[in-house]
């Protein structure tokens, strides 16, 4: 793998009046060139600090950041400013210059890197049309919607042809529909221009819809890293399970009979697995829990079904073996044989 950014035993301690606060602890990550790399965690986990360490807006107190193999710690302030031009950044609050129109906002990074005014305008116009705002050149940020502002911010971030785009909760202030459009745009830029993207988010759907790899961060540490499909199919860490499986791991009061946990690890979303099983085995099946997601036409997730009767369960297992779907029997402590009520099922 051609690594573009590498974090080596990186740590960050903030010295505050109330003592030291460890924001990041022994972070080791490699981001490959061309990847969309997601970093997810609950708020306060340290993910914003992590992304700011990558472009040295925050300076790590331990370990270091390597960009294209070069340690940022060894660089002068001037060199760091040069490196930052290779890393665009977008923010949750867009952070556009409110007193400049959007054309001049996109010109801004070009201006500060010494590009002539005429050339900067030319390039800014191209970028605005790329993000679909060429008809609003003279508008000021206050006249735009949130989604439009983020488009301007993206155009501005990629104006200097960076190799890396850092997205700090870039869609967290947007509605679901606009979020989808912005994510599409980011994915598009990644594909067309080959810009590596690092996405910081607390929303699982952002990771699912655009990321190739994901790191889950909790309590200043990396809990788990891997390909998105692997982590989704089989999260190892507690926080990973919590983020991906939801609250099912805490629910134990499940009915008698055989319980099977079926995994969907990327076969076509269009294949009606469960219906086929019911039809071909002729058994009633009760769905206790289901969380499946469609990621690019493939189904990921899992489902917990209940089959009453050993013999029926055997038939179902044979069927699943036959079509090569992963499953395993789960054995929740069957304490008081409590039936799941309809209300509870609705919750799922």
């Amino acid at each position, binding site marked *: 793998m051609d690594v573009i950014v590498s974090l080596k035993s990186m740590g960050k301690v903030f010295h505050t009046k109330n003592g030291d606060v460890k924001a990041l602890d022994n972070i080791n990550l490699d981001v490959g060139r061309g990847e969309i790399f997601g970093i997810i965690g609950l708020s306060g986990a340290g993910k914003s600090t992590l992304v700011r360490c990558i*472009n040295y*807006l925050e300076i790590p107190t331990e370990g270091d950041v390597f960009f294209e193999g070069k340690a940022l710690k060894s660089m002068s302030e001037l060199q760091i*400013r*040069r*490196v*930052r*031009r290779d*890393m*665009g*950044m977008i*923010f949750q*609050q867009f*952070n*556009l*210059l*409110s*007193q*400049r*129109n959007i054309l001049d906002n996109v010109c*801004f*990074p070009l*201006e*500060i*890197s010494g590009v002539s005014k005429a050339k900067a305008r030319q390039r800014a116009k191209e970028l605005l049309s790329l993000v679909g705002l060429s008809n609003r050149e003279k508008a*000021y*940020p*206050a*006249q735009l919607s949130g989604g439009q502002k983020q488009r301007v*911010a993206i155009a*501005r971030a990629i104006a*200097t042809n960076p190799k890396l785009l*850092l997205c700090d909760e870039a869609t967290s202030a947007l509605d679901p529909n606009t979020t989808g459009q912005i994510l599409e745009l980011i994915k598009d830029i990644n594909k067309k221009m080959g810009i590596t993207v690092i996405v910081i988010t607390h929303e699982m759907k952002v990771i699912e819809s655009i990321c190739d790899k994901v790191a889950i961060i909790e309590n200043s540490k990396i809990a788990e890293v891997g390909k998105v499909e692997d982590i989704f199919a089989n999260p190892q860490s507690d926080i990973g399970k919590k983020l991906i499986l939801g609250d099912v791991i805490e629910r134990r009061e499940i009915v008698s009979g055989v319980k099977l946990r079926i995994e969907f690890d990327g076969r076509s979303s269009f294949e009606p697995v469960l219906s086929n099983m019911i039809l071909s085995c002729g058994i009633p099946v009760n769905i206790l829990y289901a969380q499946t997601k469609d990621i690019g036409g493939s189904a990921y997730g899992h489902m917990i079904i209940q089959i009453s009767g050993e013999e029926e369960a055997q038939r179902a297992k044979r069927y699943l073996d036959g079509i090569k779907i992963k499953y395993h029997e789960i054995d929740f402590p069957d304490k008081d044989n409590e039936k799941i009520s309809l209300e509870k099922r609705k919750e799922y």
Partner: protein
Amino acid sequence: MVSMILTGLYETLLMTAASSFFSYVIGIPLGVILVVSDTNGIKPMPVLNGVLGSVINLIRSVPFMILLIMVIPLTRLMVGTSIGPVAVIPPLVIAAAPYIARMVESSLKEVDAGVIEAAKSMGASNMQIIFKVLLPESRPSLLVGAAISVTTILGYSAMAGFTGGGGLGTIAINYGYYRYQTDIMFITVAILVILVQIIQEIFMRSSKRCDKRVK
């Protein structure tokens, strides 16, 4: 009498304009230094920030009338005389520059920290942040500050009438206070009131017109 009042008006405008200009020439850089060197600034320099802040507070705490008298030797040195409208300019600048520095400081601090961070993330130098982000982004607020500062300077310039400073203040004091000609005093006061209104209006309107945040 009309010509006397016209001369007074001219002298007042001259004192106010010249003092405002020089006060801003000194006050803007001081305000910028205060913001930049702050612990949360783009180049924290706690010692410089502390010293500058204390000096500014020290000068600001001297009442203007006293300052006016205290700096007479300096005024003589600079303009060769201690009376007349030009002689009022040095004390006015000394009094107003620290005040303006604080006004500029508070305007610049209104600039969203996120915007400064964005500029940093693009590789902007501190100078670029000052001239391309801090000052342009706070322009509407700086103009509102100017409305307050310039009208304050106008008020101070009238006070200089007590030490023979010239302008409308001197006329009001000489005729209204020493000779009990209250009519002349009222006329000069009325002119001062109108002047303040006009100055206030000019700056507030230009602030509104240049502000792109609301449209």
